[in-house]
Structures are given as structure tokens and as C-alpha cells.
């Protein structure tokens, strides 16, 4: 085989030792010392080095920096001063919008996530049937969730529901007076929930994959035994889907608790802070009020909540998630 620069490289799997040293025929001790990084077992590390550097710089460093900043009064414009747990105390005592913001975000998650998973499951079941052009439908339903970062989608959503927007125009042709979708607290948050549910595509695709993994024999046997459609669904499909449901639940929960772009672009936290999500609050305190230290403290509290909820779901999973191989893999 010919590799780079025409060197002969021996890819005989039985032969241990590094690729390069084999090629260049160097003495054994030098082989071990200089070409250690290129030993077959280490070469994987070299390949992931670009990602790893990116992770260190853009992932790990900000991660650690933010917890350090949360104990300071960093304003983004001046070097930070250490203030101890002052930020955390302020959060729980004097911050007027803290509990409101937290409540709004949790209500949003509690409503949006089950609704999203339910619609994703229903559509996945439909997509699992042998229909003509099912691939087309599958793509169509998946597209909303990949319309990146949901910024453009949020703006479109706003244009739909604004007072003189598309939805009200359509309603007016039926003689219905314009509805204040974004102006009243209850409907404003419902609109944002709706936007989240509309982007069920990624969950749907995962459900679909889970459905396809269910062995057909189980269905056949059940039908032969005379089980009705609903029985089959409750006793076979759902239990075998529980790992997928578990996965989707965790992913969607984590994602929805961090929601920012939709409320920021559509309602800007209003009316009366009924859509003032925690993510938005983080952003405002960090970038609008120059209270980056406080913002870091807020984000670490969110991290703690997400961690707690995730741990809770994991703990409970023993009782309701059924793995075919008994959960060993």
C-alpha cells in the first residue's frame, strides 16, 4: 500500500508497533521513545486533538471561569473583585424577579416537554406505517427542528402572532376580532410553548428509530393471541420504547429549561414578566446590567436544578424503563 509521500506502510494487523517506525526501519529503542504518540493505540488521541483543544478553550475554560466569576462582582468592564457568596444570597432574598422567572421556566418545561414528546410519539407511529411517500412526510416533519437555533423561526413566529400579524389577518377573514396573542400573560406563554412543540422533529426521529427496533414477532404473536390494537400498544410498544422515552425526556427537559431565544425575540419577557424565562434573565443581568458575576451565579443555580432533576429521573428510571437486555448495556 502506498501512503503519504509514497512511503510503504505496512498495515498488517498482527504486527504490533508504530506505523511510522515500521516504515522507516529505525532501531527499537528510538521507535519506542519518539514515536509514542503515533503508536496505533494512541493515534486515536491525535485524531481527536482538534476537538479536544476546542473543548478545552471553548468548553472547559468558560465552564470553570463562570464558577469563579459567580463568587465575584465581575461587571465585564472591570477586573473582578471577590465577594464570596453575596451573589447567591441576593438571588434568593432581594431579587424581585428570581422566583417569578424560575416559576415561569419550570411551568414552561412541565407543559411543553410532555406535549412535545406525545406529539412526537404520535407522529412517529404514523411514520412507522407503510404509507406511500412516507419518506417525504418524515422529512417534512423533521425540518422545523433543524431550522437552526430557532432565531429565524422565532421571528417568523412573532410575525404570525403579533396583533396585525398573519394569524389575526386570517381570523379577520372569518369575521373573528383580532386576538391579543402576545399581549395577555396566559396566551403569550402558550405561544412559546407552541413553538417548542412545533419543533418535535428530532424527538420524532429518535422515536421512529426506537419503534423500528421492536421485533415484529412480538406483534405477530400478540395478534395471533387475539390482542386488540390498544392492548398491543400499551403492553408491547410502550414498554419497549421506554429507553427512548427516557432519553428524549432527559434531553428535552434539559433543553427546555435553558430556553432563551424564543422569549427574547417574541415577547421580550413580557407581558409583566410572564415570559421572563430564566435564560433571558441570565442574559439581561450579564449583558444589559453589566452584572456578569451575578449572571454566572444564576447559571450555576440553573445547572444545579437541571442536575437534580436529571438525577431524579435517572433514579426513577429503574422502576419504569425496561431494557431488553436487562439494562446491562
Amino acid at each position, binding site marked *: 500500500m*502506498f501512503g*503519504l509521500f509514497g512511503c510503504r506502510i505496512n498495515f498488517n494487523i498482527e504486527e504490533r508497533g508504530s506505523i511510522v517506525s515500521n516504515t522507516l526501519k529505525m532501531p527499537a529503542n528510538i521507535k519506542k521513545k519518539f514515536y509514542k504518540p503515533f503508536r496505533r493505540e494512541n493515534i486515536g488521541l491525535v485524531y481527536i486533538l482538534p476537538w479536544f483543544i476546542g473543548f478545552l478553550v471553548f468548553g472547559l475554560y468558560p465552564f470553570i471561569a463562570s464558577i469563579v466569576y459567580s463568587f465575584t*462582582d465581575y*461587571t*465585564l*468592564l*472591570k477586573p473582578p473583585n471577590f465577594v464570596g457568596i453575596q451573589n447567591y444570597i441576593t438571588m434568593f432574598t*432581594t431579587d*424581585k424577579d428570581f422566583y417569578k422567572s424560575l416559576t415561569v421556566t419550570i411551568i414552561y418545561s412541565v407543559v411543553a416537554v410532555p406535549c412535545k414528546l406525545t406529539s412526537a410519539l404520535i407522529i412517529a407511529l404514523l411514520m412507522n406505517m407503510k404509507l406511500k411517500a412516507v419518506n417525504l412526510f418524515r422529512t417534512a416533519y423533521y425540518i422545523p427542528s433543524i431550522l437552526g437555533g430557532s432565531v429565524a423561526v422565532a421571528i417568523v413566529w*412573532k*410575525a404570525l402572532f*403579533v*396583533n*396585525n*400579524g398573519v394569524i389575526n389577518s386570517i381570523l379577520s377573514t372569518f369575521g373573528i376580532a383580532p386576538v*391579543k396573542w*402576545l*399581549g*395577555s400573560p396566559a396566551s403569550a406563554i402558550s405561544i412559546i410553548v407552541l413553538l417548542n412543540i412545533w419543533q418535535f422533529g428530532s424527538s420524532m426521529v429518535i422515536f421512529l428509530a426506537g419503534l423500528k427496533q421492536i421485533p415484529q414477532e412480538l406483534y405477530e404473536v400478540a395478534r395471533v393471541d387475539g390482542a386488540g390494537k390498544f392492548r398491543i400498544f400499551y403492553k408491547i410498544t410502550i414498554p419497549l420504547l421506554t429507553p427512548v422515552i427516557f432519553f428524549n425526556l432527559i434531553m428535552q427537559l434539559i433543553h427546555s429549561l435553558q430556553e432563551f431565544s424564543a422569549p427574547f425575540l417574541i*415577547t421580550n419577557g*413580557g*407581558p*409583566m*414578566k410572564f415570559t421572563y424565562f430564566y435564560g433571558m434573565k441570565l442574559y*439581561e443581568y450579564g*449583558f*444589559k*446590567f*453589566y452584572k456578569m458575576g451575578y449572571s454566572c451565579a444564576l447559571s450555576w443555580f440553573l445547572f444545579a436544578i437541571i442536575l437534580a432533576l436529571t438525577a431524579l429521573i435517572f433514579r426513577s428510571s429503574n422502576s419504569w424503563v425496561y431494557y431488553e437486555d436487562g439494562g446491562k448495556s
Partner: protein
Amino acid sequence: MMKKFMRVLGIVMSTVIIVGIMAACTSNNTSGNNTSGSTSASAEKKPVSIRFLWWGTDVRHKATLAVIDMYQKAFPNVTIEGEYGGFDSYQDKLTTQLAGGTAPDLMQLSFTWPIDLQKKGGFFVDLSKYPKLIDLSMFPNSLIDGFGKVGNAVVAVPTGASAYGFIVNKNLLTKAGVPLNQKWTWDGFLDAAKKVHALGGDYYFSYDNRKVDLFQKYLRPYLEARTGQNMIKDDYSLGFTRDNLVEALSYIKTLNDNKAWPPVSEVSSAASLAEDPRWINGKIASSLGVWVSSVLPSAKAIGDAADVEIFPTLANGKDTAIASQPAQDFSVNARSANIEETIKFLNYLFTDEQALKILKDTRGVPVSKKGIEVAEANKLVDPIITKCLKLGLDNSTSIPYCPISDDSEIKNAGQDVIEMMLFGKLTPNAAADEMISRYNVLLREMKAGK
């Protein structure tokens, strides 16, 4: 055979990608490099690159770019990179750049920012240290002292003068029986509101139903007219009593209850007054506190029916509370590698006749001595803007500007309380208490932090 081909293809593609990335990185480096500016007297003419950041609409962008072109032709060793866009998120972008040390050499700022940012981080050059490059006496003292001076350092110069405009639709007002060119008071405002809404359910006197505008352009001027002081004074104390605040909030509630503006729960999609169909179709009669640079587009949108009136004040108030301020400010980045060249360019914008002719009133009414001359000689400023500014300056407030009242958190707290009141969650009395308690917490923090 196929395997070999694929491998060769893979090698070629990876080489192309690597070379491409390296080329991109290198070109970024050379274009981003600021070689040091030429020193004062000698004709060294080293190539200099200046970054100039501003916001605006197309009119302003075109004019500014034309002036940049002119300057580059006159001084071929200087390259000026214009970075421009809309106002949305401009502040976020700018503060992030300032924090990260990547801010441009010359920046346009809103008049509320220079003092605040300078105190928070010392980001700007003291222009009074370069008397040979820029003569600060060409600007009116009031616009520098109040808005661009920290201690003895002058950190910002006004791009132009502005005053909050009260733009009206003459035809609609006459139809409703509201006298024009009156000496507007807040009582008269309420009167006019009732008359206009009496024309029909979708007729409103004012466009302003957003909490941001209601706080800044209704509550604050009312309060300041009543008390004759800044809403927040420079010693971080409140410039009003609880009774004052209850009076002001009750007034706003009364306006709201009399349908002076569209319901607060109605969120409009129009980006600005000039683009709102209700304004264009003559269903809305006025807007308060329109920025001078938006007066023209809003006026053009309704043509001859547009006019400006004097900003309302209190008949028996202690002060008119009609503010005039810099339209925008220009500041020079203290960390710039080309401070002197940047100041030279800044000076050019205010003293070169051709440049002034091109820039016209895109940044408010010209205020530098030369700017005023050129504007008058060439009739560069639209008469409606001149009227707007004249009304503001002739009845100007005597309260010196205090930037604390424009702090984001202060404004936010005030806006939120007004919103709660107008949605019916708080009575004016309760709202006043809520606002005062929030301000006390914020001001205590701010005082401790400074």
C-alpha cells in the same frame, strides 16, 4: 483501484482545506494588523488602518461612507474601515467589544453611555489632551459638560444636537378639534387624547403604548417638571417624594384609562412609527419623544400633515423638563493603536466643509461652529428638524443632566412597575411604593459599588 483513488482524493482534499485555512488566517492577520500611526510633525506616512463603528439607517450609512471615501482620497495612507448596522443590539455588541479589548478606534455612542462607560472602565481617550488635533471650543459647552465630561477629562463630543420631538398629524388633530401650536401642558395632552379617541374606536392620540416609552418620555418629564430636579440625583438619592410619584403615576393611569394610546396588551409588528400603518393611515395623531433623526422619516410618511409641537410640560411646574442633548456622541478608544490619526479624522468630520455638506443632518442638527455655518449657508437641515430643535432649545430645562437616571436597571425597574400598573395589577399608590422600594435597593447597591 477505487481504494487508491479515494485515498488520493482524500489527501488532495485535506491539503486543499489546510492550505485554505492557512491562507484565510494569514489574510485576517494582515488586514487586522494596526501598524503604528504616523508621529506628529514628520511626514512619515506609514499606512494606518482605523476602524469606525456607528449605527443608523441607509441615509446615514451612505453619507458617512462618502465622507470616508473623501478622507481616504485626501490622505491616501489612511484606511478607514466602516462598521455599521442598525441600533438593535448595538449596545451589547459595543460593550462586549470594549470588555474584550477589540473595540474600534472611533465609536458612535448614545449620549447616555460615555460617562457611564468611562466610569466603569476608562475606555475612552481624554480629547482635551490633544488641543492641536481637535479644538474642543467649537462645541457648545452644555453638550460636552453634561454628557461627555468625567472630572476634567472630555471623553465624548456631540455629533449633533437633538431634542425629544413631539411629532403630530395636523390634519387629524384639526379634525378632532385640538388647537395646534399651543403651549402644550400635560392637562392639555389629556384633553386632546379624549377628543381624538372620540372620533372612533381605532383612533388614538398617541402611538406610545410601550413601557419603555411611557417611562422615559412621560413619567420622567412629568416628575422632573413637578420637582425641578433629576429623577435620580448624582448623590444616588431620589429626586422626588412619594406624593410626586403617585401624582405622576396616576396621571399616566388616567391617560391609559382614557385610551390615549392603543391598549398596552396590543403588540405591534411595525419596527417604527414611520412604518406603522396606523400612523400612515392617519389613525394615530402623535408620538412623544421621537428622536430627531427619526422625525424626518416619520414626517415623510404622512407628508404635509406632519408637524412638530412643543414638548408638553406642567402649567405650574418648577421646570419645563424639556431636555436637549447630543444626538449621538463620538468617542475615541483609549486602547487604539492610532489615537492621533483617529482624532485627526474626528476633527475632519466637524471642520471640513465638504464633509459637513455631505453629512448634513444625518446625525442631528450640526453643532460645531463650522457645522452650523455650513448648514445655514447651504440650507442643509430640513425645516421640520430645525423647528423641532428650536422648540426644544428655546424652552430648555435648566436641570443639569445626570446619567444615573439612564442606568439600565433603574429604567428597567421603572418600566416594569408602570407595566404592572397599566395591566391592573397595582394601583398608582401601590405602584409608587413598589417603585420606590426597588429604587432604594438599586441605589444602595450602586452607591456601594461606586
